[in-house]
């Protein structure tokens, strides 16, 4: 029974009295604009707004309490089980490595965790600079930042997560590597603390610099840590290749005190910068906070689709917005030459991309030093893919949407080939520089003849270019296409294939070399891959041709049927 019916019964079945005549309210004078209320806005607490938001969410839960408890149980069980397995494996490996007391083991024990430590510091600093590290979502930016609340309390909470991540991730990573290298547990603790405290200090410094809107110091430090990490890795390679005596670098145990000291100093520095940042948190501009938040949400969206290309696009776009302005340069040549020349100008405009390309030369020499020369084409090719991608920015724009390609009076194959020219040239130079590693210059002696080594280096360079082109031109996942049934549910095929984009081409082209077949097979496969990647087979055109042929066949069939229908003369 409705409330209205119950009211009617209580009133003895009498109908409700007629509504009173509405009072005549004088109309407000017509205005084209309005002022805010005259009264001063009341200061509200940020907690009150959060309470209000909680109230809005009340009753909109999508899961029952039972489901939450069940999911939590499964999560905790999985974490405990997997964690126990990982810890057991690490302890076993650590005990196995502790027994090794050779000079080579001592060297590795010192150098590898050090390289990881510097690498994690550089990475932490880079990520902090990229995202903020203090950030706010777009919703918070438009709803909370406009409200008359203290931003300090809100942003203080936002600072906690980066600081925690900054401490625990490098500490766990470096501690793991230290344990696997066979250090005793006290040393492992020292290295983990040093890495964690150091990274914490870097994140705190980045937050402090964010309040000042400065980045030069962060860039400088990031460069220093990255250079140190690479230099130490080069040292590892040199020792492994017997270019340096292992006895020259040893004594991990004697460094334990120093590492503890680094951890202590870094911790103090971190506290100093955290206090300094907390005092100035209010000064971070909303635009700066929200841009970090939008970057995170954009990258989250791209990660859900496993679209790594889109993630890179977001980062590139952000970098170009940060740069904002360039000194325009005049182009050269006409037609396709203009495109190639412009790509060359890009290299000179952003020479920073050449540094990772040059550093990737460490990989073939390291692989050679580790006596894995058979796998050198594959591993070096993959390193080359990663470092060549920044040089294929032009190709990316020409392939991700049809707009720019449609503006150019060339075939797709011509456009793609022109866009590959400069990266291919760079890859060939890389191949020449890496050739000694393919010939074999480590302590174990030559692995190939000079000619074979040069051919292997050349094929690796070509495989790297083709892998990078494949990665850059990979189509984004098409969720409207027929799905594949997997254990994780229905997935579009491109979602899975894109994960291996680049790797697949390198593996295909270098497979004959790895399997010991004549290099001509690799060359033939490279030519085939090139023909496909340059867009020789346009699927739309092929489909269109197929449909045309089907229409013609249908028309011919109809014509034949009509002929049959012609009545024969009767006798």
């Amino acid at each position, binding site marked *: 029974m409705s409330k209205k019916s119950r009211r009617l019964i209580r009133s003895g079945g009498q109908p409700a009295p007629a509504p009173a005549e509405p009072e005549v309210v004088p109309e407000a004078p017509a205005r084209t604009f309005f002022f805010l209320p005259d009264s001063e806005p009341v200061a509200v607490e940020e907690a009150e707004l959060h309470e209000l938001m909680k109230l809005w969410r009340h009753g909109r839960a999508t899961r029952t309490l039972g489901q939450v408890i069940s999911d939590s149980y499964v999560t905790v069980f999985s974490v405990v089980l997997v964690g126990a397995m990982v810890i057991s494996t690490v302890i076993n490996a650590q005990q196995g490595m502790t027994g090794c007391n050779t000079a080579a083991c001592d060297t590795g024990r010192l150098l590898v965790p050090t390289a990881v430590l510097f690498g994690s510091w550089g990475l932490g600093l880079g990520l902090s600079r990229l995202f903020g590290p203090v950030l706010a979502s777009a919703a918070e930016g438009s709803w909370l930042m406009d409200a008359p609340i203290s931003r300090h309390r809100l942003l203080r909470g936002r600072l906690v997560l980066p600081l925690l991540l900054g401490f625990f991730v490098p500490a766990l990573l470096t501690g793991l590597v230290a344990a696997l290298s066979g250090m005793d547990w006290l040393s492992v603790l020292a290295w983990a603390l040093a890495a964690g405290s150091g990274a914490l200090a870097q994140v705190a410094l980045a937050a402090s610099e964010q309040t000042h809107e400065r980045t030069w110091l962060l860039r400088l430090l990031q460069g220093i840590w990255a250079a140190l990490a690479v230099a130490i890795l080069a040292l590892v390679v040199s020792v492994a290749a017997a270019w340096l005596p292992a006895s020259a670098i040893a004594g991990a145990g004697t460094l334990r005190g120093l590492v503890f000291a680094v951890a202590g100093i870094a911790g103090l520095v971190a506290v100093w910068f955290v206090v300094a940042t907390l005092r100035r948190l209010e000064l971070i501009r909303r635009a700066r906070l929200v841009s970090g938040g939008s970057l995170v949400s954009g990258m989250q969206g791209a990660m859900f689709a496993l679209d790594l290309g889109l993630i890179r696009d977001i980062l*590139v*776009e952000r*970098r*170009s*917005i940060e*740069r*904002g*302005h*360039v*000194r*325009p*340069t*005049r*182009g*050269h*040549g*006409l*037609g*396709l030459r*203009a*495109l190639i020349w*412009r790509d060359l100008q*890009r290299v000179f*405009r*952003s020479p920073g991309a050449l540094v990772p390309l040059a550093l990737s030369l460490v990989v073939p020499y390291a692989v050679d030093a580790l006596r894995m020369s058979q796998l050198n084409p594959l591993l070096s090719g993959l390193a080359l893919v990663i470092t060549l991608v920044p040089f294929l*920015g*032009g190709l990316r*724009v020409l392939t*991700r*949407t*049809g*707009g*720019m*390609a*449609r*503006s*150019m*009076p*060339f*075939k*797709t194959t*011509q456009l793609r080939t022109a866009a590959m020219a400069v990266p291919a040239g760079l890859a060939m130079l890389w191949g020449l520089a890496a050739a000694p590693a393919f010939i074999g210059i480590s302590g174990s002696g030559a692995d190939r003849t000079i000619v074979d080594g040069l051919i292997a280096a050349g094929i690796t360079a070509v495989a790297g270019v083709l892998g990078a082109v494949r990665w850059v031109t990979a189509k984004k996942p098409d969720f409207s296409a027929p799905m594949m049934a997997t254990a994780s549910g229905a997935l579009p095929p491109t979602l899975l294939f894109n994960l291996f984009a680049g790797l697949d081409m390198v593996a295909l082209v270098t497979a004959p070399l790895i399997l010991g077949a004549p290099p001509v097979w690799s060359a033939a496969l490279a030519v085939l891959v090139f023909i496909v990647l340059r867009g020789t087979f*346009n699927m*739309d*055109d092929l*489909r*269109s041709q197929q449909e045309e042929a089907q229409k013609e066949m249908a028309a011919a069939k109809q014509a034949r049927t009509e002929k049959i229908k012609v009545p024969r003369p009767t006798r």
Partner: protein
Amino acid sequence: MARKTPVLKATGLKKAFGPVVIVDGFNLEVAAGEAVALTGRNGAGKSTVLRCLIGAERPDEGAVEVNGIKVSETDPRIRRDVATVIDDLDFFPDLSVVEHLDLLARAHGVADPDGAVDEVLEEVQLVPQSGQLPGTLSSGQRRRLALATAFVRPRTLLVLDEPEQRLDTEGVAWLAERLLAERQRGLAIVMASHEPALVDKVATRIVRLGDRGRVEAASE
């Protein structure tokens, strides 16, 4: 009097997305010096028609020809003859405004690329932004750059999808004058627009699209 050879000829276009038919039985002929404006409410199929005309979308039925050549988005002859300003134009994030125009002019083999670029840059009022990267431009400036990319290169057919979008009043007036001049110079133009001032000034023919992209009314 013999009718001029059409620059663009579309016959019996049909396009559906799944069960939803967007355009059905659409025919259009545009000769040199003619400007056709497609109008109609949102969702009438204007953009889909334009995308079919330039080959960005493959029609389910029907055929499109430009200068007697069957339209294919990848055909270099079509790319040479047809300049487009539709929403999928992508810019190189690391090339400045002037470098984009310079690249396009040179790619099309314009004899004096510097002169052509300077002229167009001044016309679209992007001289102060010439060194800026596209990511830093306002939405209106990006639209001006998109229009400039169509004007800096040779063309016989210009296809525009709501070119007045995000332009200020002064910008719309300039665009109308520019398109009028282009038409009078013998260019064929097809555009979708919601701006009466632009349509009235430029169009020689107005085609109003109704339900399922059917032509509701056409006026000379």
